[in-house]
């Protein structure tokens, strides 16, 4: 577990914002929705900012941020009353405690630039599907209705595409040119 020290508050917050995508990835497992995860993490970042003086130097800053966002997500879940928790608490804790898994999902590795290059390799049809899903905010049922396909096949295409993008980014990283 890393021991984190920060020369000043700005560097601490810079680190927190670098973690933002990973925090969103983590919180999505709790709230089951990317839009909600975005709002929860924004609330979490404000708490991190307001509690920045409480952070104990030498502890893991990443774990601290994860814990704050976990609590923020739990509060959101309780406030919804009927909202299901997507993954149980034991699984959520296992994810937060697995530093190696988080290291393999470093935000700088999964950069927008890396993603852009991999997206260029997809077919127009697949890009259209991603556009409808992410920019158009349609769920898979709505996309299926538009394409006249069973919803299961949309899930399969989306999951394959995501796996394809993930593998492409990792492969791209392995082939980085000399620096």
């Amino acid at each position, binding site marked *: 577990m890393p021991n984190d020290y920060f020369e000043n508050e700005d560097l601490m917050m810079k680190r927190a914002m670098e973690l933002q995508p990973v925090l969103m990835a983590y919180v999505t497992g709790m709230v089951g929705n990317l839009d909600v995860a975005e709002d929860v993490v924004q609330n979490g970042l404000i708490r991190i*900012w307001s509690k920045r003086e409480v952070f104990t130097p030498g502890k893991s800053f990443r774990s601290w941020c994860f814990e704050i966002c976990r609590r923020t997500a739990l509060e959101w879940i309780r406030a919804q009353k009927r909202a299901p928790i997507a993954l149980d608490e034991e699984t959520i804790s296992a994810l937060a405690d697995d530093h190696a898994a988080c290291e393999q999902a470093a935000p700088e590795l*999964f950069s927008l630039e890396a993603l852009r290059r991999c997206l260029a390799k997809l077919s127009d049809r697949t890009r259209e599907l991603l556009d409808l899903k992410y920019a158009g905010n349609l769920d898979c049922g709505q996309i299926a209705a538009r394409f006249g396909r069973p919803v299961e096949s949309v899930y399969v295409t989306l999951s394959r595409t995501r796996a394809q993008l993930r593998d492409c980014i990792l492969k791209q990283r392995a082939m980085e040119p000399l620096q």
Partner: protein
Amino acid sequence: MTLSAEQKNRLDLLLTQLTDGALSPAESEELGGLLRGNAEARALYMQSMLVAVRTREYFREHAAETAVSRRQPEPAPRAATPTARRRGPLPFSAHARRRGWRVTGLAAAVLVGFGIVLSYQMSRVRLDSAAAHGPALATLLRATGPVRLQRGAQIMPAKTRAALRDGDRILTAGLGSSVVIASPAIAELELGPGAAATLAGEPHGGLGGVSVERGALRAAVQPRKGLPPFAVSTPHAEVVVIGTRFSVDVTDAATRVQVAEGVVRLTVRRSGESVALSAGQSAEAGERLAGAARAHTDRYGRTRTGLVALYTFREGRGTTVRDTAGVREPLDLQIADRNAVEWLPGGGLRITRPTVIASAGPARKLIEACRTTNELTVEAWLKPAIADQFQRGAVRIVTVSSGSGARNFTLGQSHASYELRLRTSETTPNGHPSTATLPGTLACDLTHVVFTRDAAGRCRCFLNGAPAPIASADRAGDQRGPAPERTVGGNFADWDATMRLGLANELGLDHLGLDRHWFGELQLVAVYARALSPEEVRQNRDAGPAQLTAARTAPYGP
């Protein structure tokens, strides 16, 4: 335990359903079991979720470009999911670039109108109406880091897609925190770290202005087409805009305004002084007006417009290389190893052993200025010690970077050619593909080297005042060209605000513990937030390095 291909496929499918909110209790339990019991599954979870987060980010940022596919009849979106962003404006920089505003030609008419509208505008914009709750003026397009919204006495987290109203106050936190606010067909505003600003409506509705208490504002204002001008109010000044791109940086002491496109009028509150600033110009309003009246060339005939940092190596001793540009706070550099360099009589610094000459903190003024203009000129009078310098990559002569793999830009030497690596939204964080002169164009003579890049992406190189044919290298290292110029598309929105400026080496070691040191003499280094024209490059070449033209003891400056 390694996951089988079948298990991986199943995991990917369950994760897709999870992000769609469509996981059944049984599937949730199945997914939980996989994740709890298998480290590889947890790694795949984090990677897949990060891909989903990034993909969503990408498509939302490019929503306007890809909207064609969504113009077909479509089912109603989910009620719980806001749809305002579907056809929303692009983020600040990309949107501004695509608009292709060309308002400079209107400058004369604008100036005539300024005097009339200024007094009206000041009374019209109600910048102190903190409690007013009218219709939505703008949308919060993107919040990075902790951003708060104050509405009356209530302070809340600023959320993406939030509707903003007259009197809303936006507060960003420290380094890296920022917020983009869009008012379609009116303006897009980006507030940087540590900023506080209040939105103001105008009588007929719509966003009419913004009051910036502190921090940096970058703004792109659409041509007003008969509407009253857009106003930016600060503790020190009023900035009135017809339609342009500009930045305002408010500190305790002063307000600095820099114009990228079009014309704005800056009026100092205390002294009443007023000046019109056009593209490439800047000025500072504190107690009085400063900066704007400066000549566009210095006493040696070098162009000053857009100059951000200048080093002439005339110190003669010590370990500090002073920034003599006279623009904002000096970005002085420290020589890490005094024994690795020799001061040259009359000016210049010879680097004989590996060292680095770097700023103590981020090259803030340089980065902010270039991000505003999306233009850059890197200029050097130099003399390489060795014609074929290369260490697992180009050796660094002038760099704004944070290591061997991440930079905003770098002027380097790669074997016997000069190379510019430039980070844009269309190149890698390491500045690939780079722009380089042809192999063999580098000689161990005193040389005037200039790379320019304009907002349209046009990259040029000049050696001793003459255009130099350039070759471009793709990611595989394949050379193309030669060509008189090359297009490096994109913008500088992704530039890292924490990077330092360094000379003669990379700022840090690579993963093998190696640096990228450069040996030779530096007699002048300048950075402009503007692409110099070929005429201006020749003008600077004719002025020579400072030591050839200036009195030995006179300070080099405006």
